[in-house]
């Protein structure tokens, strides 16, 4: 599921250190080059702001930006929770009844393949703005949870299922003691994807809603700053969005690791 290259046992510490240090060096070098180019060629900030100015703007505008960050994160969280609950619940329903799955699954796919940026303006007409934004985040994030959970519930070892049958397990027992634990790694993988996607959904909806007014999320700030040619603030807002995405992914990856570390291959150390 997660594409991690196997680390050779020998000199693995040095390798791991390199894997941490190298991107940092690249990042620092890039920033330095950027800063130098801007200063030497005297590029004005409304064309390309230097990293130092972006950081200063981030500090100066923190009051506005932090407010926007909170708004976007709240939207993302609501969309994520709705997608998680909805996706898992629907997958469970599918698993209990083939007829429900056959009837509804095509529509889940339609929802998935229709670009959310095209749905957002419609939703903004029919729903209140805040609701519409959350629904967008939900639509984008919901499918990976649904499909991963469905896959997980169907990946139960055939012999284990036979064992449960032999010992007369009831449907709820089979679900609780066999299917859900077996599906857990898949569900967590789906949630990890959904976390990042709900942020994307929230951002897309905010941008679509931008001209409609009242929005105050980070994506709205980016659009607004663009209209005002406040390019440093655009970059600062973008930086915050990117950091938010990284943190969301990191938290979900950590949760997944903590839940699975006792037993699942994906969470095992190299000694195995």
């Amino acid at each position, binding site marked *: 599921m997660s594409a991690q290259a196997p680390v050779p046992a020998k000199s693995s510490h040095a390798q791991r250190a390199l894997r941490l240090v190298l991107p940092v060096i690249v990042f620092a070098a890039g920033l330095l080059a950027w800063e130098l180019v801007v200063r030497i060629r005297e590029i004005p900030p409304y064309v390309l702001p230097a990293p130092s100015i972006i950081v200063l703007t981030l500090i100066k505008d923190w009051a506005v930006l932090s407010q926007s960050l909170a708004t976007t994160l709240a939207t993302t969280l609501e969309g994520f929770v709705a997608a998680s609950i909805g996706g898992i619940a629907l997958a469970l329903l599918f698993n209990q009844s083939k007829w429900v799955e056959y009837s509804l699954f095509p529509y889940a796919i339609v929802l998935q393949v229709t670009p959310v940026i095209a749905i957002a303006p419609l939703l903004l007409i029919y729903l209140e703005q805040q609701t519409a934004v959350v629904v967008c985040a939900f639509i984008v994030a919901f499918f990976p949870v649904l499909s991963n959970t469905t896959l997980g519930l169907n990946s139960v070892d055939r012999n284990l299922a036979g064992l449960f049958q*032999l010992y007369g397990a009831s449907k709820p027992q089979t679900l609780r003691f066999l299917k859900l634990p077996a599906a857990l790694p898949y569900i967590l993988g789906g949630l990890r994807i959904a976390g990042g996607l709900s942020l994307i959904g929230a951002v897309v909806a905010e941008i679509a809603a931008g001209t409609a007014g009242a929005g105050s999320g980070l994506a709205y700030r980016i659009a607004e700053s663009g209209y005002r040619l406040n390019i440093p603030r655009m970059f600062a807002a973008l930086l915050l969005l990117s950091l938010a995405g990284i943190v969301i992914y990191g938290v979900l990856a950590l949760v997944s690791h903590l839940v699975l570390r006792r037993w*699942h291959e994906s969470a095992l150390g190299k000694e195995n």
Partner: protein
Amino acid sequence: MVERNPSPAVEASLTALAVSLRGVTKVYDNGVMALGPFDLAVRKGEFISLLGPSGCGKSTVLRLIAELSAPSSGTVRVARHEGVPQPGHGIGFVFQEPTLMPWANVRENVRLPLKLGGVPKAEGRARADAALASVGLADFADSFPRELSGGMKMRVSLARALVTDPDILLMDEPFAALDEITRFRLNNDLLALWRSLRKTVIFVTHSVFESVYLSQRVVVMTARPGRIQADIRIETVEPRGEEFRTSAAYSDYCRRVSAALAPSYSEQSTL
């Protein structure tokens, strides 16, 4: 220890039978006839092996006895468990793979049949620990399956089958994936368990040597659709031990069983 020389009368009486299959066939959904017509009678306390080429329906026989699958025709009768009703209705099943739940520790894996049958937690744990002790894994109750070797996982699987105190133990090539030395050890342990617990054991294998070493009767099956090719009684001094493995009688029996098996694999066109 183990009663010998069954009279034909005993053999015929249904009450002494643990399992009987009459004219059983099994046709898969795709129309392939996997088994039969197949007749088999297993006495209570008997250790029999089903031996045959891949795809001859050996595993199907076990699945039919365990009611994991229904026969297309014929009857499958299993003696009712006497005494307190147990989860699994007196049948324990050991698969070729250990088939353990990776998310649960060894004790919880062994306790599973009791948990599903509604046995209280404390009692279930005590019985799981006892079953683990009987297969020599008392110290590993808190380990997770991935921390165990292949042979140990198989022992856990055996403990789980024994935890319900079944009358009949169905084993589907349980040691096939193990190295030979581990397999020899587990063979001896299984024989010791069988002598002390006096279960009926139906053991599916594709190893001539294993079937001769372990069982009182080797039932050799034909290629698909599986029928009985030969039913060979293995008689030797009980209890068996390593000296049987090196005896002349043992190699004699191996020769006889191999000879009975030969037509099944020479007539097999696909493999």
